[in-house]
């Protein structure tokens, strides 16, 4: 996964270097929108779904995006992107600015432009309350299991300290959950994360003091100097008039370093933080969640399920059409075509779908083909599943005895007529069950497209689970959603199988 990320980063860097200088500002002005990329799975308090009403995206970076857009005289529009892919998506042009706790680091300047910092986070260590052996100093971390996020400053600090680093690709919940359950000894993460996921857990405690500091900045595409200047000016003005300090104050994440940057936060309650505590501090009992919280997820899950279904249907249609061509080409075509079809099947069957999707979405733009996320998802899934379908149909075609083809030949039927009226209909019956199986698998594999900014069913669940801190209940809910969209197809397949196998039902004689 990491190596893959590095690979795609290379690809997109090359693309960015070759392309003409971008003018994001002009496109922002033209569309009246500031498209900003973030990962809602990243969680509170950055960008997340309001646990009390998941239809709304909230977080201090959401507030920041709104204020920034206001200064630019446009509207802010969030675009979902997997967190560790944000900079590649930015280079690809999926949004104008990445705004999601992006750390200021030298190596990032090769792939994007960074604004002035808007926040400084302290690295905070969280341990189990009352754990006598808990590591509480940097030195004590050596050799201990410590959880953190991949690619973060915290990860580098831990590596230097000689800790046994556990990086989590998922949400923050899991990192602290593992600590609570004793699977790790400590967690080192940015202050805001520690506050929202560590502090709310009574069994955990935050160790005093900072283990390092990291600044967050906005990222814009390489060459997009005009937008960079505009955003810097907007940040400057937001700092000067106290807007930033007010936002951080209300989210309860102010600290001395940030105050030096944007001024001190006004005294008072951190209302957003208190709201979060109230919402997730203690999960309501299951049936209460079913009554009060889950109904609000309906429209989100519906949208996710709709996307999953649409993706799967389009991909499957592509896979079936291409698979048929491959199977027929492989069985009846001239030698070079047979080899080509075999090579296709082996390639797409033998390499991970994730790599194929990454190549289609991030790699093809290098060759000048820039697909939108839905198209890229359908093409990658379709190309991949075509290999499986080709094998299904080949098995179906081969299951028809050679005598059938000879009988057709003797009757004068051409190759095409034989395939169409004799071999094909008999092969279909054999191919339907594995085809159904593949479709259900495709329905699930379509969750991979969250990589390319699409919030389908699984991603919807992961985001919700992260913001509502509820994995089990929502997990059951999403399972039901998958079954609801999958079962009708299983039923349809049974009917089709019965239809094509009707000649095998013996009548009473």
């Amino acid at each position: 996964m990491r190596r893959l990320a590095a690979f795609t980063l290379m690809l997109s860097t090359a693309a960015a270097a070759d392309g003409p200088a971008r003018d994001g500002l002009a496109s922002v002005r033209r569309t009246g929108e500031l498209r900003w990329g973030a990962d809602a799975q990243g969680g509170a308090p950055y960008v997340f779904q309001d646990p009390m009403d998941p239809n709304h995206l909230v977080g201090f970076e959401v507030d920041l995006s709104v204020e920034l857009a206001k200064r630019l005289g446009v509207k802010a529009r969030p675009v979902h992107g997997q967190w560790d892919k944000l900079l590649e998506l930015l280079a690809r042009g999926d949004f104008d600015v990445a705004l999601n706790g992006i750390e200021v680091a030298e190596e990032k300047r090769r792939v994007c432009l960074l604004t002035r910092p808007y926040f400084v986070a302290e690295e905070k260590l969280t341990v189990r309350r009352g754990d006598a052996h808990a590591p509480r100093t940097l030195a004590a971390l050596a050799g201990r299991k410590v959880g953190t996020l991949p690619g973060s400053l915290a990860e580098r600090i831990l590596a230097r300290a000689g800790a046994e680093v556990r990086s989590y690709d998922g949400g923050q919940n899991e990192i602290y959950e593992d600590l609570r359950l004793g699977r790790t000894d400590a967690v080192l993460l940015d202050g805001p994360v520690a506050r929202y996921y560590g502090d709310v857990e009574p069994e955990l405690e935050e160790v005093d003091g900072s283990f390092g500091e990291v600044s967050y900045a906005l990222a814009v595409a390489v060459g997009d100097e005009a937008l960079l200047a505009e955003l810097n000016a907007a940040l400057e003005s937001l700092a000067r008039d106290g807007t930033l300090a007010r936002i951080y104050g209300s989210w309860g994440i102010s600290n001395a370093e940030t105050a030096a940057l944007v001024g001190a936060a006004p005294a008072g309650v951190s209302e957003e933080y208190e709201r979060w505590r109230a919402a997730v501090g203690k999960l309501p009992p299951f049936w209460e969640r079913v009554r009060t919280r889950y109904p609000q997820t309906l429209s989100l899950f519906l949208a996710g399920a709709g996307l999953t279904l649409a993706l799967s249907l389009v991909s499957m249609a592509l896979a079936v059409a291409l698979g048929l061509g491959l199977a027929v080409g492989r069985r009846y075509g001239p030698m070079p075509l047979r080899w080509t079809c075999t090579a296709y099947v082996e390639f797409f069957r033998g390499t991970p779908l994730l790599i194929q999707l990454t190549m289609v979405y991030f790699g093809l733009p290098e060759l000048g083909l820039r697909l939108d996320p839905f198209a890229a998802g359908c093409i990658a899934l379709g190309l991949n599943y075509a290999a499986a379908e080709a094998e299904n149909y080949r098995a179906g075609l081969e299951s028809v005895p050679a005598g059938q083809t000879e009988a057709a030949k003797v009757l004068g039927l051409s190759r095409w007529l034989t395939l169409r009226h004799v071999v094909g209909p008999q092969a279909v019956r054999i191919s339907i069950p594995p085809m159904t199986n593949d479709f259900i698998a495709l329905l699930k594999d379509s969750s991979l497209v969250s990589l390319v900014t699409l919030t389908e069913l699984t991603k919807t669940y992961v985001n919700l689970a992260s913001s509502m801190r509820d994995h089990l209940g929502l997990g059951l809910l999403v399972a039901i959603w998958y079954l609801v969209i999958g079962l009708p197809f299983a039923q349809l397949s049974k009917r089709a199988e019965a239809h094509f196998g009707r000649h095998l039902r013996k009548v009473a004689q």
Partner: protein
Amino acid sequence: MTLKVDMLVRRYPGAAEATLKELSFDLPAGTLVALLGRSGAGKSTLLRCVMGLEPFERGTVEVDGAKVQGTEEVSPAVRERQLRAVRQRLGLVFQSFELFPHLTALENCTLAPVKVKGLTRAKAEDKARELLAQLGLADKAGSFPEQLSGGQKQRVAMARALAMEPSVLLYDEPTSALDPSLKAEVLQTLHRVDATGVTQVVVTHDLQLAKGAEHVFVLDHGQVIESGPPGKVLTAPEHDSTRKLLASWLEDGSRKPT
């Protein structure tokens, strides 16, 4: 003359000896002919070569003026064209019938007339029903092959072949896939078709079936060694090797009643 085979040579790649060695015969039109020979004599190869299911190197197969030559004598494209013309004049009833299992008896008999000959569906169905009725299957038109007995399947296969109106209808071992008690019934059906004037060639190693034919050819080691009416060939053969063959068949017959 309906079916004429002249100097046919078929040698399998890598085989020391040819399977068909300049084999020739000329069928009398409108008769019921048995092509007799023990297994390995080249009967199946001959049948497959005549039907174009397998190539032959030299010689000709001629049906009603249409001719196929050996692969060493004409180009593949020419040969393919020749084969198409010859196949139109030939029908084959496979040993295992090879009915299309997903089609009803009627559909089995109308598929090729509609798709190949371009008959209207109604015309093809009328013709097929007529043939099925002639073969005693009037009430089985809507049945799928799986729902039919072995004998019924064979008659559907005959109807399917006859629907294409061939000059010559060939049978590959018509009794071997059936219960021995059905032999008489098969013979009866063959005679019924014989009455319509179609030339029939029954490839078999079944003496009883051969006795019911009007003319017998005996095949051995890839050649026709004797021919004539069954009364003569099967009771007073001219050739020594025919006598030996008959003796061995009778022995076989006494050991396993087929």
